[in-house]
């Protein structure tokens, strides 16, 4: 089920009413059934994968909890890693592997093609796999006690607000909240709906309207003028941000209505002065996952320079692969690794960094690099991305198509940039909650009318659903 669908507009109030109407001890059942129903709207069969992950990690976790040493627990962790990542590989990476292998075999003049699979990529598989993996690793490291109730654990894996595109939560943070008794709290519901409204607005009005222009150029960049290609590149930066941030806000808002706090996933990332800062502000739940479960176990920065550089490469490589089964994502991750290392090596002295003008330049620099890297993320192949840059450089003259961007779209974009900057210190729900009634409802009117009249009409789901 999509958040920006009529089904969800019916589903959420129904769940909320039932949630607060039934006794607390049965709420986990409602949320679990609701979460499974939410997922089954997309594809019934693939619920089996979630159930498989759930049962697997529940029993492996339980087993690990019975064992006292890491050595004893290790085989069970390995089973969890192999099976979870095996499922992920089969459904997400197999075709990429088969395709790439066939190309390599072709180079080697071996006349053999590895058959492709026609399995659909299960929505959100990378998200819930990483969530369950974090549980297994935490149990292995004795950081948490294993869950003893299969139903509660199943809810932790499948909690619908964050099931298909995060935020990727930790067991220690989410599970106690799912078990806690939440009394009806009007403030939570109001704040939840405020976040949902703002999330829907930036997804449906900002992201979906920008997507039209972006898709147009990316479909065949050779036809467009340099200026149009540059415009589409920057538009995509805002599209993906509004799309994913919008999704995260709706997820956080939905959970909030139920009295559950999910972690923030974004903090005005385009105001970052360095790439390192950008990754502390962009998709925070994934960045922290990689930091905690990959970067630190490899030694983090407390190792030799060369080993540290290697660690950085591995983390960004893994981040690229996590995003998608395509060389473009791998290249995208490696570009970040290169820039991250370069920036650390070439860091400016603190005295200069505090200068306001320098800060603006640094923000612009980071934004431009991030936007350039998004081209690889958005393109279907690396050669398509390089062509995009090639045409950006050479497509001058009147024979090329120009993006006819409506003045209204520029207005929307400026509005979004302004509001996002304004909300850099406090989230929308916090900002609005103490404002006078009339002011609040004026803002709501802008968002509600905006969604009703100006919502984009492209057949776009959330960009991060594909991961």
């Amino acid at each position: 089920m999509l958040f920006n669908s009529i089904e969800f507009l019916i589903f959420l109030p129904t769940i909320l009413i039932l949630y607060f109407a039934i006794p607390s001890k049965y709420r986990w059942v409602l949320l679990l059934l609701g979460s499974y129903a939410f997922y089954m709207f997309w594809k019934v069969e693939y619920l089996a994968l979630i159930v498989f992950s759930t049962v697997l990690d529940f029993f492996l976790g339980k087993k690990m909890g019975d064992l006292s040493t890491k050595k004893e627990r290790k085989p069970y962790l390995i089973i969890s890693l192999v099976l979870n990542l095996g499922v992920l590989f089969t459904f997400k990476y197999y075709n990429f592997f088969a395709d790439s292998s066939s190309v390599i075999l072709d180079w080697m003049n071996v006349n053999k093609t590895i058959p492709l699979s026609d399995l659909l990529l299960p929505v959100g598989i990378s998200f819930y796999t990483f969530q369950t993996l974090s549980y297994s690793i935490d149990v292995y490291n004795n950081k948490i006690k294993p869950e003893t109730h299969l139903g509660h654990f199943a809810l932790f894996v499948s909690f619908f607000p964050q099931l298909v595109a995060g935020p990727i939560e930790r067991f220690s943070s989410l599970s106690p909240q799912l078990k806690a008794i939440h009394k009806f709290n009007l403030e939570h519901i109001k704040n939840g709906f405020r976040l949902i409204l703002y999330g829907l607005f930036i997804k449906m009005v900002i992201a979906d309207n920008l997507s039209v222009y972006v898709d147009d150029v990316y479909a065949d960049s050779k036809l467009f003028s340099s200026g149009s290609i540059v415009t589409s590149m920057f538009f995509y930066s805002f599209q993906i941000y509004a799309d994913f941030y919008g999704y995260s806000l709706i997820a956080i808002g939905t959970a909030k209505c139920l009295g559950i706090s999910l972690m923030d996933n974004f903090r005005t990332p385009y105001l970052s002065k360095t790439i390192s800062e950008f990754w502390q502000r962009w998709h925070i739940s994934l960045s922290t996952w990689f930091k905690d479960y990959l970067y630190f176990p490899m030694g983090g920065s407390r190792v030799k320079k060369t080993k540290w550089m290697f660690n950085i490469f591995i983390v960004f490589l893994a981040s690229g692969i996590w995003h998608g089964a395509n060389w473009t994502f791998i290249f995208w991750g490696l570009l970040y690794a290169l820039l991250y290392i370069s920036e650390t090596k070439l860091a400016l002295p603190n005295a200069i960094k505090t200068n306001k003008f320098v800060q603006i330049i640094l923000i612009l620099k980071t934004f431009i690099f991030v936007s350039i890297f998004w081209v690889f993320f958005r393109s279907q192949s690396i050669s398509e991305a390089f062509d995009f840059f090639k045409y950006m450089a050479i497509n001058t003259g009147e024979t090329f198509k120009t993006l006819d961007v409506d003045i209204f779209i520029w207005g929307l974009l400026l509005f979004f940039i302004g509001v996002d900057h304004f909300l850099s210190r406090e989230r929308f729900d916090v900002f609005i909650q103490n404002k006078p009634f009339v002011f609040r409802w004026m803002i709501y009117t802008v968002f509600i009318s905006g969604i009703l009249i100006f919502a984009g009409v492209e057949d776009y789901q959330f960009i991060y659903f594909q991961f």
Partner: protein
Amino acid sequence: MIKYISTRIITLILIISVTSIVYEKYFFESDVLKHSDAIHLIRNLDPNTEVLYIGESSNSTAHATDFDKRKISEMTADFYPKLVFDDITKPASHAGIYKTLINKIPKKNQIKTLIVTLNLRSFGWDWVESKLETALNKKMVLLESDFALYNRFRLGFKAYNQKSEQERRQAVLKKWDAKLKIDKPYNSVNKWDKHIYKTGVLDDFGNRDDQKTALTAHFIKNYAFHIDTNNHPRIKDFDEIVEIAKKRNWNVVFNLLAENTERANELVGSDLVNMMVENSNLLKEYYTKKGVLVSDHLNLVADSLYTDRNWPTEHYKEKGRQIIGSHLATSLRQIYPEAYKHHTYLSYDEMIAKTNVYENNLETVKGWTNETRTNEQAFSGQYATKVNASHPYGPTLEIPFYKLNVSLKKSVSYSFKALLTDQNKTSEIVVELHQKDKSVVRKVKKLSEFNLNNHWQEVSHTFEIEEQFYNSEHFKIYLYNPVESAVYIDDLVIEFGK
């Protein structure tokens, strides 16, 4: 608490009501033009239309070598000179789309008879779950007869038949698992398809012919099904069309299109052809019982008269369209016995012998390929043609040049009225002379040489044709404008041998 909630609900209702008024007044029309351009098909209908033909690309698709490139509907109209015919032709559409469009026809109209294309292939699951479906359905949302803001809300929240290409593919594969009533081990489309790929279709020398094998599989995938009149979505849509027509007191005629049964028989055999015949008989019987006049053309068009060779379609060459047009006209005699007038279509040679001057005022389209007709501007009448990056080729006259009288071959003059929205150096008048060896001789005249501006002005140019090209197979003349700024042209006259 009750006061708290009721204040919010009332405020919300007020916001939505005001938004609805504002939307309908200021934004709806531009949204319809932007997201549901099919509305033009309704708005452009002749208000005096008595017979309305509704169909997909089968109505308008012509072959490059056709001289008479008119639609089936226009060819049918040849037999009823006193009746006003018009058509709604929307490529890739089907009953579900026709239904919405028919509903948008204003209550006040002169229509007496509705001819609806009944395309057997559109019942196949490959078409029901076609990747074009999502886009087609999306374009219909704003045309539904609900509140404007509610339709816009549905559009924004994707509340229409919206699925990804992958999901549609999976749905088709599932449908193709259904058991077929044939006494063969491959008794489902999927099994049949696999069998064909495994065994392959052989060419005349006994070797596997991959192209033929693929075409055979296409035929199976497109026609191997059994229609269940209780559950098939197309039946539901056609039933609704019949209901709408009844409510409006229109006669309903279903034009059961010709399918390439000859090729199906040659490639696949009688199992498939029998299925096609059974399905078409079922449709004929089902709708005849509902009071619909079904004009059956299933087997009327020979394989050689289909334009597409690598895919089963209902795209016919000139002769094929004439066969269907005249047969449909004969069926219509049951409704209009008095208005029918015998008509004979002219051959190529007869047409060419008849005239050396070809005119197109864009008010009606006769024999010229044209996707650029617009009512945004016009020198005379209501329509002109708009040529720009979206549609860079203007109306194109094509004729088999070698058939022209020698005295007419020495030159061709092209005159028209033109209006430029902006100066550009790239638009040009193009003459193409296609040679027997497939090479093409091009002659061009840049519009920038005429000092045109944003007022209607006369443009006239004569191209001399050298004697060595008199044997050219094919002749084309058109305006080409690949840039964004539009060129409008109207009242075109092309004269040979001037």
